């Protein structure tokens, strides 16, 4: 199937948010079970332990070949072939992402265990988008533009308004954990997952299914280590309790349900990370808050949750927050300018060096050396045409090897999914 390319990115990110909202609902049910309610540390380990087993089984099923292609390639990620071992080149990224995911989960659990109403504190985790903007301006090739910064701020504050609860107690320690542990680790995790997705393995694009599988495995290892150290210092028995609970059939099935669903949310998220910046992805992910509302109502009807504010002031604040999220996302979607640049170069100049010079220009997303009328076909992406001139055309003019070029703005595009 071929669909509009800009839709593909948004479809992936928003579908991931929808599934994440469903997972949040399942999580609140599973987390409310007696074995986990008073031991969130055990909950963290059990999630990763059962998650690693379930993710491996799903990935194996997705590796089954059907009409020459794996099931996973047909339904989730066209780059996926089969379960494979981690390659040496991606190991350091997996280690960092796994460690960050583990610390993030432990930080989350620490908040859940100390605050009666975590939504008061966790709404501040939406500020992670601003962390990502800052980190991308340092590490990424494509520095965020003013429009991206503005849209991100709108989405961030919208998400805070939409998710904040006026019922719980405000405490400084959990807030510090959010700002110093949860947000930075999630930001680094997102950036490293993106780095993994845009890597090429055996000269082919990396696939999100293997990235997710190995992330869960490494997160499980790191969580075990953190919990083991924690148990030694506090003379606790969280790790053993978590392991015992995980192998209980009832809890195993519940955890398998939540982690099995999470798998699909993450695979789509990682795939969308390969198509757009982590900050934009996380801004889109804020739509989870909107999708969580119907799931909360279902859980309320089923009696799983009992506390659901119907205070008119709260509802107005939430509606304002939701409007801000939607406006911010639309603003992201409508402000991308893409173009092809067809380049011919002077003869007698090495093409590989020129290719690298073209690649170093900010906003360039593809550089291809081609046979035929043009020596290079370059694809660029920018937020405004003015930036396209300042960042791209001016830099292109500075490359001595370039003989002639033609700019062709993309008016509409489709891509096979």
């Amino acid at each position, binding site marked *: 199937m071929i669909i509009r390319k800009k839709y593909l990115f948004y479809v992936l990110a928003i579908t991931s948010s929808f599934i994440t909202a469903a997972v949040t609902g399942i999580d609140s049910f599973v987390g409310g079970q007696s074995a986990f309610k008073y031991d969130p540390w055990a909950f963290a380990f059990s999630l990763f332990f059962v998650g690693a087993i379930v993710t491996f089984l799903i990935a194996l099923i997705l590796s089954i070949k059907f009409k020459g292609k794996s099931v996973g390639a047909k339904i989730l990620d066209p780059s996926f072939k089969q379960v494979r071992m981690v390659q040496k080149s991606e190991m350091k990224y997996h280690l960092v992402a796994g460690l960050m995911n583990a610390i993030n989960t432990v930080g989350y659990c620490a908040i859940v265990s100390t605050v009666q109403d975590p939504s008061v504190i966790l709404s501040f985790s939406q500020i992670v988008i601003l962390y990502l903007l800052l980190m991308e301006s340092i590490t990424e090739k494509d520095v965020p533009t003013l429009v991206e910064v503005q849209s991100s701020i709108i989405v961030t504050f919208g998400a805070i308004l939409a998710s904040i609860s006026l019922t719980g107690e405000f405490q400084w320690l959990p807030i510090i954990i959010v700002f110093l542990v949860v947000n930075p680790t999630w930001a680094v995790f997102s950036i490293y997952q993106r780095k993994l997705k845009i890597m090429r393995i055996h000269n082919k694009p990396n696939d999100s299914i293997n990235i997710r599988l190995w992330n869960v495995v490494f997160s499980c290892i790191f969580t075990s280590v953190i919990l083991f150290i924690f148990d030694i210092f506090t003379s606790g028995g969280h790790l053993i309790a978590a392991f015992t609970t995980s192998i209980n059939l009832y809890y195993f099935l519940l955890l398998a349900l939540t982690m099995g669903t999470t798998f699909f949310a993450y695979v789509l998220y990682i795939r969308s990370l390969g198509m757009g910046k982590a900050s934009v992805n996380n801004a889109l992910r804020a739509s989870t808050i909107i999708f969580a509302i119907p799931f909360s109502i279902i859980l309320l009807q089923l009696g799983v949750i009992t506390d659901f504010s119907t205070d008119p002031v709260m509802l107005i604040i939430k509606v304002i927050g939701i409007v801000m999220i939607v406006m911010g996302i639309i603003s992201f979607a409508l402000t991308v300018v893409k173009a092809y640049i067809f380049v011919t170069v002077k003869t007698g100049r090495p093409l590989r060096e020129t290719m690298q010079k073209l*690649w170093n220009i900010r906003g360039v997303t593809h550089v291809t050396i081609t046979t035929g009328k043009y020596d290079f076909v370059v694809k660029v992406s920018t937020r405004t045409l003015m930036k396209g001139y300042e960042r791209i055309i001016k830099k292109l003019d500075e490359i001595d090897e370039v003989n002639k070029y033609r700019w*062709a703005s993309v008016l509409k595009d*489709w891509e096979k999914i």
Partner: protein
Amino acid sequence: MISAYILITMQPGKSDKAIKEMRQIDNVAKISIIAGEYDIVVRAQVKNLEELLDVTDKLQMVEGVNKTTTQIIEKEISLQ
């Protein structure tokens, strides 16, 4: 795997219908409508040159296509 850009010039007013036909062609990975010297850029991904010939043949048979220019990709750096 061989990838190629096929640059297409169209007769005026025929693009919409042509795009619908092009989306049905096997081995077409991306289609972009562009402004400038060319009207449409198609990215094809094929196993061999024989298959590339099939794609260009099919594209040339689409009503409204005036001319195609094929650029075979020798090396690529990409963010995705």
